[in-house]
């Protein structure tokens, strides 16, 4: 167990305590709810990491790392264009979505190549 979750759980709890301390000062809903949501998200992340760590303890698996990824860059450009399209019109959203789809396809292709590499390494 790597105990990584402890950091997230402890910090989420600390945020919860500080949020709860507002109760003595008649807080407005907004000032109470924002840190409460952040604290809850941190606790939830801590629980996820706890579960992941428990799974990982049963066995480390090898990783394949992509050396470079033009597909990721394409994906981000698509996302940026689509986001800007929200301000400048549907035409830009559509172009952005197209570029995004292209990037997504590339990322999926990279994922398949990674899986192939891992299978090959595993069979050796």
């Amino acid at each position, binding site marked *: 167990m790597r*105990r990584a979750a402890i950091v997230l759980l402890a910090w989420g709890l600390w945020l919860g305590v500080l949020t709860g301390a507002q109760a003595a000062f008649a807080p407005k809903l907004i000032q109470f709810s924002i840190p409460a949501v952040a604290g809850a998200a941190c606790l939830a992340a801590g629980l996820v990491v706890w579960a992941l760590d428990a799974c990982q303890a049963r066995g480390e698996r090898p990783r394949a790392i992509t050396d470079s990824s033009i597909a990721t860059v394409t994906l981000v450009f698509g996302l940026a264009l689509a986001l800007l399209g929200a301000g400048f019109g549907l035409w830009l959203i559509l172009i952005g979505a197209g570029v995004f789809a292209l990037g997504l396809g590339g990322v999926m292709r990279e994922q398949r190549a990674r899986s192939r590499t891992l299978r090959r390494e595993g069979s050796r």
Partner: protein
Amino acid sequence: MNAVAVPARAASRTLASTDHKRIASAACMVAFLFFLAGGLLALLMRSQLAADGGVVSQQTYNELFTMHGSTMVYLVIVPVALAVGLYFVPLQVGAAEIAGPRVALAGLWMLVCGGMAMWSGFLTSGGAAAASWWGFDPLSDSIHSPGSGMELWIFGVMLATLGQILWAGCILSTALRRRAPGMTLMRMPVFTWTMVVTCLMVVFGFPALLLALGLLWAQRHFGGVLVGGAGAVDYQALFWFYGHPVVYVMFFPFVGMVGEVLATFSSRRFFGYSAFVVALLAFAGLSMTVWAHHMFTFGVLSNKYFALTSTALIVPAGIEYFDFLATLWRGSLRFTTAFLFALGFLVQFLVGGLTGVILASPPLDYGLNMSYFVVAHFHYTIFAGSAFGLFAGIYYWFPKITGTMLRERLGKLHFVLMVLGTNVTFFPMFILGAEGMTRRIARYPASTGWQGLNILETAGSAVIALSVLVFMANMLVSLRDRHPAGDDPWGAHTLEWATSSPPPRHNFRALPAIRSYAPLLDLREAREDVNV
């Protein structure tokens, strides 16, 4: 065929590498370009104030301070703080790679796209965004800020922030889940711990900004989202839930850098490690619950609670300062440029921190709010503090990143000019602020008598610009005429110095045994024991 394929591969490796070191280096270069651009805007602003308001119009001045603040916060200091973590956290915890390398690459290009979107506002007919780096509603709504400059700012900031959240996720995962065998949580170096708390704040605080900007966009296009005074308060609450932690995101990584530098150049183990880690976690949590001290004058939220938490920040900050001073105590000090910048950070940040205590008190804040006193406080924390911490880190880690030493003489000249420029520029702002000089105004009446100090500040900003030129010259000279650094030129304590300079693609060929947060110091001490 090969001759054609090689450049394509080289381009792909430069633009799309998933190596965390290349991503971080590229991010630093992008941020440095934005720093130069943002600095140019600051010089224009200072020229305007020195020339008694005779250089640009009020509208242009609004655009200048908006884009200066936005550039420095969203595109320079936060990205650099995270990029240094992206480079060094995997090295410090003995990992071969960052967790989620493609996600980190996506973060880099989101920063580039976001920055370009924000700055392209200058090319639009209505000009760039002019509603300050906060983009407050209703100043930023479609009535008061019409045109596409504001739209570009909203999407640019959203993209850059999203990229920063992705980076923080990668760094946090690496520190928590990719550590080398033997590297327990309480053996992580000081800098890595500061990055952990920084990333906690980014991951759980920054989404509030995305939500605020999403609401602002909806308000601009559809209306009825941020309605009246309550809408403005809600926007501000969401914004400052990002806007205050971001100050600590621009501070903690540099605290970590300074901690590493002080320990290395005083040849002593970092003092009070466990207390420092606990203080950091407490500090980061508190900093998420002080945001409404930016809204004291609204009188809508619980001022007493936020004054209490803001003042309580002194306790963990005091522990950190005590640890720094105790690390120096009886150390054999080496006054390198990195060490000088670290000392500069300690002294000048103290000015910023102590004036923060004044602003944490609602009765005093009512008098000083929106004045140049706040501008001075902020710049003493972020520029006189964090930028000095950053330069300490640059002079310390440059040999590791490039394999080349920076010139010490030019470094010391850089330091002296920067101390001089910083204090001449920002200290008079305390006086002007206390006298009632409000911020974000392009022209002040001559009867106020503020012109003399404004001219002095402008001269100071020119000295800062000169110091940056000296730094750039130092980089160029050092990279052209290389003085090889070797693996560990400083006799440092942490794992990144156990590998070659620059490190190989997967960081380490072999790792030393890790028995504390200073494994290389352990090795040296063990060798000395054997020799004795």
